[in-house]
């Protein structure tokens, strides 16, 4: 077996038993990148030298017994909207193409303490507005499951790097579904933790009340190991909350037959939205799981029809405000030869932002304007509360709620990536978690007719990632790996 195909636990074991060294492992993943990156384009930047220096340092610390984390010495990468000191953090935007933060995001500091080896920064849609990299200023990342016979499928770099062995695990961000959607299309595991479980300090804001950082890994066990390291209260983010759970891996392998699992009818019976091929992959997975004695129950989630508009109104409003600081004055791109201040603003923002950012900023500005606020934003805030209450109520009855991640196949998703009217709709199943702040994840559950992976989505109770991961692990065991 090749090193780049192993998971965190396996690699950590090899390092611990001194069967491989951290520099060796790092070198091997860097070699894998050299071999395949030109075909995929997962990375916006790679810092080989830094990674190798760091690898030796970490090896030394492991030898001295100074680090005991399972993440020690494991090469990984992060999405390019997570701030890294002395390394560019571009958000895949012309606006920040040379931006080097003077500080590390809290998740980066925490991973450093755990001895992680950061290889580089991953491609994404501009300012995280999408899951395909279609709107990246730099390049488009290809799905590693592409083959000669299928139309090319795009994906953001985070899961691609993990699926293709260019990183053992990665950190992504999820505002409306990025982590789960892209993990689903690449056949890896992606978790959007409960809002507040992971500090957002150092995550470049897209929509503040929706954004969360989460792990993208090869399997559920790896997911728990990364979550252990990055979660917890942070004084730099006052919306972060601590929990008493210190090790999520200890819940894996526990019996789940007594648990109640709900499926919203609005997900699977929506023939207008749900593509048949995806419906079948999901149903097959449910059938397989039912065969092992797990019970599923369909339930009704009537407010589902409001989820998308409410998500768009509030998140676009927040986006219009969080994108406002890019004005050419302090950092980032500044247009040249401007006549006056207004001209500087117009040119800088006109040239620095791509079309999807502009679309959301314009719509968000409209929703927040004095004349429209009552009609859109205020109503949306009320509905957000109501949707949250309804889903939390359902979660009193069910331990976990499941459904498909995307309503369409990876190829349909890519086909419409540049068409906002269509692409918006595809966030319907995932953005619920961001709207309500609840945890949700994607685990591989099969492949569509063209051979692209499709994920199964699980929603859990607030701050009960322990139950969520326990169920995900049981599912993973029963569904088998997607090869």
């Amino acid at each position, binding site marked *: 077996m090749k090193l780049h195909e192993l998971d965190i636990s396996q690699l950590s074991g090899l390092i611990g038993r001194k069967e491989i060294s951290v520099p060796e492992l790092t070198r091997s993943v860097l070699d894998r990148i050299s071999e395949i990156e030109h075909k995929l384009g997962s990375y916006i930047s790679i810092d080989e030298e830094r990674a190798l220096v760091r690898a030796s340092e970490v090896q030394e610390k492991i030898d001295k017994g100074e680090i005991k984390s399972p993440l020690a010495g494991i090469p990984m990468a992060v999405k390019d909207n997570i701030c890294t000191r002395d390394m560019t953090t571009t958000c895949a935007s012309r606006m920040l193409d040379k931006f080097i933060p003077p500080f590390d995001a809290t998740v980066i500091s925490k991973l450093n303490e755990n001895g992680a080896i950061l290889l580089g920064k991953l491609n994404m849609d501009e300012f995280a507005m999408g899951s395909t990299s279609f709107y990246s200023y730099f390049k488009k990342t290809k799905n590693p499951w592409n083959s000669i016979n299928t139309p090319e499928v795009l994906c953001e770099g985070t899961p691609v790097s993990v699926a293709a062995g260019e990183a053992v695990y990665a950190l992504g961000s999820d505002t409306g579904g990025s982590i789960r959607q892209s993990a689903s299309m690449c056949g890896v595991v992606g978790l959007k933790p409960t809002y507040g479980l992971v500090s957002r300090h150092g995550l*470049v804001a897209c929509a503040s009340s929706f954004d969360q950082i989460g792990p993208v890994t090869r399997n559920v066990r790896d997911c728990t190991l990364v979550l252990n390291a990055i979660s917890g209260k942070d004084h730099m983010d*006052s*919306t972060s909350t601590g929990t008493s759970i210190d090790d999520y891996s200890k819940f894996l392998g526990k019996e789940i037959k007594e648990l109640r699992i709900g499926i919203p009818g609005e997900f699977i019976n929506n023939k207008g939205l749900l593509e048949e091929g995806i419906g079948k992959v999901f149903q097959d997975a449910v059938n397989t799981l039912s065969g092992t004695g797990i019970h599923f129950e369909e339930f009704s989630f009537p407010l589902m029809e409001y989820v998308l508009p409410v998500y768009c109104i509030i998140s676009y409003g927040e986006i219009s*405000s969080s994108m*406002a*600081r890019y004005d050419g004055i*302090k950092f980032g791109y500044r247009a040249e030869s401007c006549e006056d201040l207004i001209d500087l603003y117009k040119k800088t923002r006109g040239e620095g932002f791509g079309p999807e950012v502009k679309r959301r900023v314009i719509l968000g500005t409209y929703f*927040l304007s004095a004349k429209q606020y009552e009609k859109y934003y205020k109503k949306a805030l009320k509905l957000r509360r109501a949707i949250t209450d309804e889903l939390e109520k359902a979660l009193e009855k069910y331990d976990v709620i499941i459904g498909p991640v995307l309503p369409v196949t990876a190829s349909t998703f890519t086909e419409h990536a540049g068409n906002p009217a269509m692409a918006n709709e595809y966030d319907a199943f995932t953005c619920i978690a961001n709207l309500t702040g609840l945890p949700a994840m994607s685990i591989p559950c099969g492949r569509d007719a063209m051979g692209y992976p499709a994920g199964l989505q699980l929603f859990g109770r607030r701050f009960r990632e322990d139950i969520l991961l326990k169920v995900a692990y049981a599912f993973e065991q029963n569904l088998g790996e997607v090869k």
Partner: protein
Amino acid sequence: MNREKDYEVVIGLEVHAELATSSKIFCSCSTEFGGLPNTHCCPGCIGMPGTLPVLNKNVVEFAIRAGLATNCEISGFTKMDRKNYFYPDLPRAYQISQYDIPICKDGFIEIEINGVKKKIRIARIHIEEDAGKLVHDQWSTGSLVDYNRSGVPLIEIVTYPDMNSAEEARLFLEGLKAILQYTGVSDCKMQEGSLRADVNISVKPKSQEELGVRTEMKNLNSFRAIIRAIEAESRRQIEELESGGKIYRETRRWDDEKGVSFSMRSKEEAQDYRYFPESDIPPVIIDSEWVEEIRKSLPELPETRKRRYMEEYGLPAYDAEIITSSKALSDFFEETVKNGANAKTASNWIMGELLRLLKEKGVEDDSIPFPPVHLAKLIDIIEKGIITGTIAKKVFDNMFDSGKDPVAIVDEQGLKVVADTGTLLPVVKKVIENNPGSVADYKAGKTKALGFLMGQAMRETKGKADPKLINQLFIEELEKL
């Protein structure tokens, strides 16, 4: 034509006061005034991507203090909101402020005008962050931005339109300033911009019920400018109406040098700030226990102090008012009394010589260049007859300039009273000899002439002669003639 008396002026104020917390509202940077440009800054202060604001709890406490001291209701639940607009001094292009749920609401401050008490109601007090400052570079055409002030905590105090003259507005501001200083909420240093006001003014014929159209003047940063702006703007509005014109709802810029205001922009085309809840900061829950704790810790407020000075020390209302209107002055007074000085005498010195010198030398009353114990000592040596009143004034001037102990000044310069007959008698004789005219006047019954002669003798002794003794010697000597 003077029709001003037929009109009523209606004034509302929005006062911004910088809080005296040592660190900024959303990060731990220093709030200290001055410093090289962009040195009191962190990534958060300049709105760098990835940074998050974390609300400084002291800011909330300071605002509660201000609210309690101005008789406000304190909200049990409050939240922050974003106010969106583009300007280079606003690093995130939104100001974190409060929109619909301010920390404090429905308070008042009482003023006294022509012996009549009047309540000026406060609609709300909310917290927000200050912006940076544009510096116009003298060597190029561009402007530079200094973000040292960015994130300095402010409270905005919004009144109802309850004031009807520049004098009422002045009294309100004096009262507010004293309260903020007493409670330690703000140092209210206007020259450093830590207290500034937006003024809303309208006028209406006295017979008319409804309010007139109001204009707004922003960012006035001295009491003098505020008063002058109110006077000029109300006059302008009355003249406009009298000549058949109309007042437009607009923002006007006050030019204090020229003493006139200019139209800036009309409210119709006013900016839409697109307020919405700030999701990076969770709502703040203020429990009543905390509020009570803060209420108990409030110091004596100016109004109470004033009453106490009148009752306990017998100071006249006027003196008590002037001294308590400044916390620094009042604290100086209290310390002087604590050091043994008679309260009325101390008050006389403060009201007279001290205020005169502060004004003359342009010194702020929180920077009095000598400690209260020196004034107490000075009063003590006067009362003991060690120096004369005339000499005391000189010693006071010297104390003010040098900061030296008055006893040391007296010793060094040999300013003690001369009270022995052996020294003074020859002086008296000499003065009598040199001023035959005055002597004749005295003899003719003009007792005023004695004053002149004593003055001459004082001059000879450089003010050090014991006035009682010298008076007695003159009478004796003149009797002999």
